[in-house]
């Protein structure tokens, strides 16, 4: 089976009654990189939280979300969380351990691996994230870019098949952006990225979904969608400059 993620008619309401998601349906094939676009408040983060069962709070059996062919239910939630790695929007929320090494080790430890295996995974994940030697660094002493990479390392250490990222490049300076983009490019997992960074979308993803007020308003190949200036403007986005000119710094820096 080639479908990594299958979302069918997903709806969700907040406690105060506002509709966050309205009948969202889409699918992601294995190995793809799909971008989730939309203005602020469109429900991107809420959708992402459904992809590893953090929402709804009371996980039911309706199976609106399927991961690797299996619906997400209370029975297989552990497996799902192993398969889907979620990188949160605010790195301070995710880096809850005092040192980078401890934080990256958290996931493997929860998996019940031996100390040797945990160490091996930590080293590998740190290397993948370009943070070799950072194991002993205190989390609150890191720069913003380093924090984001540490979050990525923490998720990579769990060796997920699917990587879901919520606004991974926001607040990064241009160099941090380029470095992070290069990192993501090297990771072979299936990727779903919610972002405002339209240049990132063009450079990394093949397909995109546009959300507005909780519903999917458009879906399709990236260039086609993003070149549709009318569509972009109608939903709080715009046509990125990268599609108008060539990037001054080339592909990888």
């Amino acid at each position, binding site marked *: 089976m080639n479908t990594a993620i299958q979302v069918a008619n997903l709806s969700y309401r907040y406690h105060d009654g506002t509709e966050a998601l309205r009948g969202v349906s889409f699918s992601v094939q294995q190995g793809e990189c799909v971008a989730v676009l939309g203005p602020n408040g469109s429900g991107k983060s809420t959708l992402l939280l459904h992809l590893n069962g953090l929402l709804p709070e009371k996980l039911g059996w309706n199976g609106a979300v399927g991961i690797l062919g299996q619906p997400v239910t209370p029975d297989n939630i552990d497996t799902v969380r192993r398969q889907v790695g979620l990188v949160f929007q605010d790195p301070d929320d995710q880096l809850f351990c*005092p040192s980078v090494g401890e934080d990256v080790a958290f996931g493997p430890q929860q998996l019940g691996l031996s100390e040797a295996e945990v160490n091996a995974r930590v080293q590998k994940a740190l290397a993948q994230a370009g943070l070799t030697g950072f194991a002993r660094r205190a989390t609150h002493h890191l720069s913003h870019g380093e924090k984001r990479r540490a979050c990525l390392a923490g998720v990579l250490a769990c060796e997920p098949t699917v990587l879901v990222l919520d606004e991974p490049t926001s607040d990064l300076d241009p160099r941090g952006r380029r470095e992070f983009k290069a990192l993501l490019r090297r990771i072979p997992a299936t990727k779903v990225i919610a972002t405002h960074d339209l240049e990132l979308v063009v450079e990394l993803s093949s397909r995109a979904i546009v959300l507005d007020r909780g519903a999917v308003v458009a879906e399709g190949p990236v260039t086609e969608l993003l070149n549709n200036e009318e569509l972009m403007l109608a939903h709080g986005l715009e046509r990125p400059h990268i599609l108008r000119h060539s990037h001054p710094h080339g592909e990888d820096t």
Partner: protein
Amino acid sequence: MIGDWIGHHHSHRDSLVARLPAGLKLGLALVIIVGTVLAPPQAMGWFLGVALLLLVAVVLSRIPLLFLLKRLAWLSPLVLGVALVNALQPAARGSWLTVAARSAICLLTIILVSNTTPFSRILRVLKSARVPGLLITTLALMHRYLFVLVEEAERMRRARASRTFTPRRGARWQTLSTVVGQLFVRASERAERIYDAMCARGWK
């Protein structure tokens, strides 16, 4: 003020003392503190011996002297208070000088340990001393998010202050209590997101 008060940056300075194992330092500190508190006022030998040991440790730890002196000076109002009250009605346990000496020694000991030992190591020692896991987790999370919240509070206060033009005290109190209230709300929401982040990586 915050950077100075939170002498945390000192704990990452490398020195002979910093390299000693945390358990040893804490154990020694406990011995010194218990001994100093229990020693009768006449035990000059103990006081002098410990003071000497601490002096050596201070030199070896490379902690700035000014920082230490400033920190010790914080004891003075309390000692003064004791002295004053004892002048009105003497206490049985020896003069305020003894109190001052004891508290200075104990304070110096704990400053030395806290500034040469990362807090996570201290937590590990506490954990092996059978302190309940829930308390350890809470301590760890508090330590991790302490600076995050303090900075958040500072940013909010500054943002509010830049839009406050009346010097009235009432307005200050209103501003500050709103900031503190918001801080709790944000802390509460962040706690939920942290829970989600923990669950996302398999926590039970």
